[in-house]
């Protein structure tokens, strides 16, 4: 090791790998992964979230995790986004493409993608 920069480089490279363990970030993306969710295609959605959050360097503040049956099986795959101090946003009938869009607009831009939320489907 010859310089602090060299050390910093290893740290930056490794950060993604340990950041999961620092507990939840400010924002939590929860993908419903019960049997119904998986059958409806939740796995590619989850994988897309994990991939994009990492690629966009959002892992400091966004935690992607999974949960069991949310209870609205007809709307699966369901994704809920929790943010401290804000109301929970529930996205339904998700796909990998929609997930990409949510990362871009909601997680990065702070804009809820209204047309994918449960409110849009129910009204």
């Amino acid at each position, binding site marked *: 090791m010859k*310089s602090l920069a060299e050390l910093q480089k290893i*740290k930056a490279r490794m*950060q993604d790998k340990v950041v*999961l*363990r620092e*507990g939840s970030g400010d924002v939590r993306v929860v993908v*419903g*992964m019960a049997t119904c969710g998986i059958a409806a295609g939740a796995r590619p959605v989850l994988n897309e979230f*994990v991939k994009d959050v990492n690629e966009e360097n959002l892992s400091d503040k966004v935690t992607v995790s999974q949960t069991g049956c949310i209870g609205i099986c007809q709307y699966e795959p369901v994704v809920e986004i929790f943010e401290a101090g804000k109301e929970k946003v529930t996205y339904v009938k998700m796909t990998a493409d929609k997930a990409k869009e949510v990362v871009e607009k909601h997680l990065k831009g702070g804009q809820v993608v209204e047309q994918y939320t449960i409110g849009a489907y129910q009204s």
Partner: protein
Amino acid sequence: MIRSQVLICGGTGCTSSGSPKIRAEFEKQIQNYDLQDEIKLVQTGCFGLCSLGPVVIVYPDGTFYSRVTEADVPEIVEEHLLKGRPVDRLVYNDTDAAPTDTHTETALSETRFYKAQKRVALRNCGVIDPENIEEYIAMDGYAALGKALTEMTPEDVIKCVTDSGLRGRGGGGFPTGRKWALCAPNKAPQKYVVCNADEGDPGAFMDRSVLEGDPHAIIEAMAIAGYAIGATKGYVYVRAEYPIAVKRLAIAIGQAREYGLLGENIFDSGFSFDLQIRLGAGAFVCGEETALMTSIEGNRGEPRPRPPYPAVKGLYGSPTVENNVETFANIPQIILKGAEWFASMGTEKSKGTKVFALGGKINNTGLVEIPMGTTLREIIEDIGGGIPNGKKFKAAQTGGPSGGCIPESLIDTPVDYDNLTAIGCMMGSGGLIIMDEDTCMVDMAKFFLDFTVDESCGKCTPCRVGMKRLMEMLEKITKGQGTLEDLDKIEQLCYYIKENSLCGLGQTAPNPVLATLKFFRDEYVAHVVDKKCPAGVCKDLLSFSIDKEKCIGCGLCARNCPVNTITRTDYIAPGHKLASFEIHQDKCVKCGACMANCKFKAISKQ
């Protein structure tokens, strides 16, 4: 892309309760479900809750699984990792909160065991893979060494450590900064840094856990110490009974060399430092600093008189700084976050945190790190989860065989160096043994004395002969043959040994006796005058008897008696059909098997 990590504890406790098998099963099941690209398995050091091992934590949710068996693994993989449903029956939860939101109530950080803790020395234990230097670097590892070598002078480093108020965690409590400052000005061709990992107190395993869970922190800290005092060589003296710690430390040293964090010209600063491991054979006295150095030199581990102190004349006659593992574990954080940060934790004269190995009659046996000044009550009731089986707290032993006991009346004492010394106890290295009402304090003192008699190196007479005589007098008391004069004699001899012994072993060995005499004199008196052991432990003072009115005559006691000293009488109690039994005291060995087997509570001991 990794979306979830499964951390499996690889500390000594969990390893012996089967974590390697669990790891293998996880590997198999993850392959089975084709999840190897999404789930990463990490073997870590000790999480602290050893009594609940093997422990598995699943991130990012932080779900804490306890007492996991091989058979549980397929369920965890299928339910939790594949489908996202934590396996509730295995999730550890000691909070009173109703399980509403599964994500918060199952998280490790929310449990009462962890909530009151403040992890500084243990910050990476149970978080990183100790066999992977890059994970340590990701957690700011070696940044403190980099900062010290590139931005600070050795004087700055010493000042920072001094200002932090860090005191030796091995038991003595000597200010670490002052120790370094005493050594730094001494000129010599070769100076040394020594890490004392010869953890010998029965029931203490703080140092082992740090070495197993975060070995790089010790390497980094020793290099920083080397820079501060001008030493280029270091030794870690660790007991051979810690095979996992030794192995991980050796791996860590190898990796540090490979990355140029040990060796020549570290960070291009001109400073060179290297480390070697020396294995101890497990003699308690080798934890004493001068005996430890004598042992490193290849001689029989015996202490020598001080002064000269090691700072002037230590290992191989050269100026040496010796610190304990936990002391070193604090150093990188102090350098990185500053003296003020560290000094903001703790009490006026005891800064920072302390790691305790919680053991004995307590629900959560394990490793806890608390800010100095936390009361014993908080440690026992909140973090420790109280005493099992609804028993009453009697006393806590700190400092192992060198320490003393804290009785119930002092349970609200804030734990720090000076408070414990003031009540005739000592901080010690961190063993904290909780005792309930079933513990006989005379027997407890005898237990520790038995240990120190065994471990005395024999070099000086007060310790070698004095302790033996002390032991004999205690034995006399537990056999019911003691006199009140013996109590005075014991006290006198204790002070004599303390004042005249050569090293810390002898100087502190009578402490368990003195402390119990001070706080539990009535128990000694009960043994001597009434010939009774109030806790029902000392066998020679016990007798078992059968209440003939309660005995239904089933004969279970007689069948279980190993010496056949229970026989049937002629007496049939009213309402019963069979004649009752009786115990013949002459042959009774007081094993208690009869009492344990009686289903009618007809047998009592007193």
